């Protein structure tokens, strides 16, 4: 055997064989990609689809005190949260928290994102990394940090008290104020990330052009910069909004039991009152709220980006 013989020159297949060959490779390809996809799909089925499906089914059961569950098919679990004023209050509070956190977060993230989008500094990469790195730190730790800053004996109250500016400590934790401040900071990296990606069309040339045509700084900002940033700002707002309405750790810790939102209510119903069908119904309501907002968002981005 000589080396020359090793890679046998492929014989040119006759025309009628070509289709067969193609089909054979297609079949083999099919087997390969199905084998590659299957483990992942099964993993998601078990850890994602089954739990959600089971929860939706559970929401149509009847809950009784002490964790007794009556297997049935009823809408009672939905009627209660939709008719009881208390749950309307909780849902509205959740919604309001989402809007407030979303707006404030966009306001504080915008200058940073604008700075990062325009920067030509060699430190730009590092500064972007620093701005989004908090995403990968524990939400519990960051919330704890805010408890240290905002608490009765915390940084702010001690400093203001030490300076003689206040007599009684400001109430910044165990209420919505604390939860809002904490959430605004915690979601800033998400907002900044969404904005940098959304500011694609922003270019210094456009701003310079407007300036050289006689527009004032203020006009350049309101007529050129801001409109170009709008899609990015909207994306960031909606992202922070949906993250806020479903977040649990921060309302629990900084709210200290006196802030009730849908997420804390779901937890209480699950572990405290053991009313699983009811907790499931609240979750489905939260999911529907979520789905609606994402649908609206996709409509809007199509319109703006179109």
């Amino acid at each position, binding site marked *: 055997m000589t080396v020359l013989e090793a890679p046998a020159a492929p014989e040119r297949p006759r025309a009628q064989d070509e289709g067969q060959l193609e089909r054979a490779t297609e079949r083999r390809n099919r087997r390969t990609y199905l084998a590659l996809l299957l483990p992942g799909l099964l993993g998601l089925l078990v850890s994602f689809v089954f739990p959600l499906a089971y929860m939706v089914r559970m929401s149509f059961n009847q809950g009784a005190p002490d964790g007794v569950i009556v297997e049935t098919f009823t809408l009672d679990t939905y009627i209660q949260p939709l008719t009881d004023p208390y749950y309307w209050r909780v849902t509205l509070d959740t919604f309001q928290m989402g809007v407030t956190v979303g707006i404030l977060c966009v306001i504080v993230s915008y200058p940073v994102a604008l700075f990062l989008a325009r920067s030509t500094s060699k430190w730009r990469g590092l500064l972007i990394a620093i701005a989004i790195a908090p995403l990968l730190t524990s939400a519990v730790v960051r919330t704890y940090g805010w408890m240290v800053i905002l608490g009765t*004996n915390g940084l702010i109250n001690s400093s203001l008290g030490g300076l003689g500016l206040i007599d009684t400590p400001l109430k910044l934790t165990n209420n919505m104020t604390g939860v809002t401040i904490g959430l605004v900071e915690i979601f800033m990296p998400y907002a900044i990330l969404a904005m940098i990606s959304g500011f694609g069309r922003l270019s210094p040339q456009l701003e310079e052009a407007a300036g050289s045509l006689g527009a004032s700084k203020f006009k350049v900002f309101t007529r050129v910069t801001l409109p170009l940033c709008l899609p990015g700002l909207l994306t960031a707002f909606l992202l922070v909004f949906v993250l806020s309405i479903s977040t649990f750790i921060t309302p629990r810790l900084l709210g200290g039991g006196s802030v009730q939102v849908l997420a804390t209510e779901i937890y209480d119903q699950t572990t405290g009152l053991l009313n699983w069908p009811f907790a499931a119904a609240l979750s489905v309501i939260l999911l529907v709220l979520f789905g609606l907002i994402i649908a609206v968002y996709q409509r809007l981005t199509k319109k703006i980006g179109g």
Partner: protein
Amino acid sequence: MSSANASSAKVFKPRFNPAKPAFGALVFLLYLFLLAPLLIVFVVSFASNQYLSFPPEGITLKWYEMLPQESTFMEGMKVSLIVAVIVTLIVLALGVPAALALDRFEFKAKAAVQSFFLSPLLIPSIVLALGMVLLFGPLELNNTYAGIIIGHVAITIPFVIRTTLMSLATTDTSCEAAARILGADSWTVFRRVTLPIIQPGVIAGGVIAFIVSFDEAVISLFVAESGLPTLPVQVLRYVENSADAAVAALSVILILISLAVVVVVERVMGLRKALR
């Protein structure tokens, strides 16, 4: 590190503009706000005050020395490490092949399958957590390692898929085709050609999956609060009940672990790309 866009460099220098330093100061303050909770935890962890208060009275390492004796933290650390390591291995084994299929093959439902793999990130974790605790009840998986691990697989797979796809997208398939023509079988092609190409994505996805699982608190809280509390669950409980600084020292260690992950991801593929 991404290089600055050279073409957008200013051609002529504008005159001094007082708005510029003001804007710079504003951005600096906002960075300070963003990093405030992490920075304050560092300060408190070295302060000798017995209870949480300001200003620090002195510098001490006693909170760090206390950590090994705090058995709840050590237990939680053990549980979280075991869970995070196993979750990472599982999602790499599930996610990398799936990403390969999504990038290297053509099939009808491709876009739908890809959205499906990324969709767990769109579902609030409290909702997923509730679904899991309900489903795991009759299966007797609550308060077990298996339960927490299954719970974390859903929320970490999207990261691995995304980073691996990102690595695959930046390369063309000609190297693999060349290897195949030269007679390599599919396994050799994967091991010797594809794997080196996707290595950055796999590493980034793996360490992100690790830290997301290690820091995850909501699913762990629902599924295993009473029987097998993870470290974040222990920290959560501790913070609710006491005000000393031991938990600050622990938080610093958690922040340093996150920082290590950030550095690795930034090095291999860029944090912004990986978390997009």
